[in-house]
């Protein structure tokens, strides 16, 4: 290869904007529009191989890549944290292939791609929350055949899901499902909110932000438009309840937020801290202290 050819190849853009080719984006965009028009219905799409393994958020990445533009500000979280492997690598991916601005601040982001949390800071109109979904079908572990689950959605036949929740009560005395807690969207489709803790389910209800869900391996896209009714399934005598924590965050003292347990030593020492790292940092910057930070001062 001559030097001039090599030089021009080096200068040539390596990827299309946001990695995906335009035909793929069109196909995904059509699926997103259909998903928005039929809230909670899983739209099949021709999921592509991505330069990361299934299970690393290929569905969310394809949705984000089809939505994102040069003016967007992207935030990526993994279990609420901006600084863990999955979040860092996906953020770096979009910096490389779309050269977009990135942020860790929830309020500044226009697109937030998430693996299994909804940020504590309330979302606003115009923001898009993109979920990475491993198993989009809420009925899959109850009925393995796609032909059957599709028929169940078509006929709005969700008795099996209530039996599952009832079996929880029969076995444990309460509904023991704590994550991927099934919801009903606009009174029609039962939907898997992805493995978010059920603590986050109420945040989906009438959220001003647009919520998009991408499942790469399972090849499904679904959506919840803003201000949409999202109701967690329950029973009259066993109403839906979110997790409660005994103590506030050990670093920032926040209450009514979702906490992660952090092991401190090998003698059983542990603390509970905000799962949402951006929220926790913002509170500490504003002077809030928790048990651990107080002790350190």
């Amino acid at each position, binding site marked *: 290869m001559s030097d001039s050819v090599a030089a021009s190849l080096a200068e040539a853009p390596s990827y*299309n*904007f*946001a990695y995906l080719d*335009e*035909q793929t*984006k*069109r*196909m995904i*965009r*059509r*699926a*997103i*529009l*259909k*998903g*928005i*028009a*039929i*809230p909670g*219905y899983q*739209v*099949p799409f021709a999921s592509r191989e991505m330069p990361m393994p299934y299970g690393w958020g290929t569905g969310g990445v394809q949705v984000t890549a*089809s*939505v*994102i*533009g*040069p003016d967007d500000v992207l935030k990526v979280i993994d279990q609420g944290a901006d600084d863990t492997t999955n979040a860092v690598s996906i953020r770096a991916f979009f910096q490389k292939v779309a050269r977009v601005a990135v942020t860790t601040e929830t309020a500044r982001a226009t697109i937030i791609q998430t693996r299994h949390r909804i940020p504590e800071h309330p979302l606003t*109109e*115009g923001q898009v929350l993109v979920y990475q979904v491993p198993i989009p079908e809420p009925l899959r572990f109850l009925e393995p055949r796609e032909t059957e689950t*599709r*028929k169940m*959605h*078509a*006929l709005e036949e969700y008795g099996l899901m209530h039996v599952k929740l009832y079996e929880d009560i029969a076995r444990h005395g309460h509904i023991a499902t704590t994550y991927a807690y099934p919801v009903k969207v*606009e009174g*029609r*489709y039962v939907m898997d909110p992805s493995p978010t803790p059920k603590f986050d389910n109420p945040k989906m209800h009438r959220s*001003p932000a*647009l919520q998009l869900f991408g499942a790469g391996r399972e090849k499904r896209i679904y*959506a919840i*438009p*803003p*201000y*949409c*009714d999202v109701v967690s399934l329950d029973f009259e005598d066993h109403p839906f309840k979110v997790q409660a924590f005994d103590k506030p965050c050990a670093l920032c003292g926040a209450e009514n937020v979702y906490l992660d347990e952090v092991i401190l030593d090998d003698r059983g020492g542990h603390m509970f801290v905000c799962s949402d790292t951006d929220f926790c940092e913002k509170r500490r910057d504003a002077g809030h202290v928790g048990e651990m930070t107080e002790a350190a001062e």
Partner: protein
Amino acid sequence: MEFSTRSIDGGFAEPVIAAQGVFRALMEAMARPGTVHALPPLAAPPAPLTAEAGAVALTLCDHDTPVWLDPELQGSAEIRDWIGFHTGAPFAFTPAEAHFALVSRPGELIALENFAQGSQDYPDRSATIILQLDTLAAGAPLVLEGPGIETRARLAPAPLPRHLATQWRQNNARFPRGVDLVLTAPGAIACLPRTTRIVETEG
């Protein structure tokens, strides 16, 4: 075969960025029915296909999506060639086969029930109808409710398909089946997904 240069000109100057921008306007419009989003003139199709409807077609249509044209658009070889050249989309012989419909004269549109409604199993296999309107703000006001709308939204599109309020109630009743409407007007775009209810019509 005659192939006018007007069928080759008038695509997106920057296909990647333009398609992304148009899609975001469409996505916002579909997610928040009743909101009107600005759409700069990015495409220049042969008349009477408008810049806005042309831009939506360039953004969403390709060889996977049969397109149906209303009689006026169908009558123009230049428009058929333009869509064929820029999107590669095949033309649907009947509205029931179409994924997208382009309509230059909404007032003369055949009934919405003629278009693909999807099935109860696959409600996504339905048509999206792109209407070319004169205005989204100066027609008879519609009051809208439904997903994507906090309380109520207002839109005043004109001209509309005949008996739209009745047709739309029937479309709502078919949920999850049904068609979705993309309303385009000069410089602007709005959407009526099948979930939106027209609760009031004035005038």
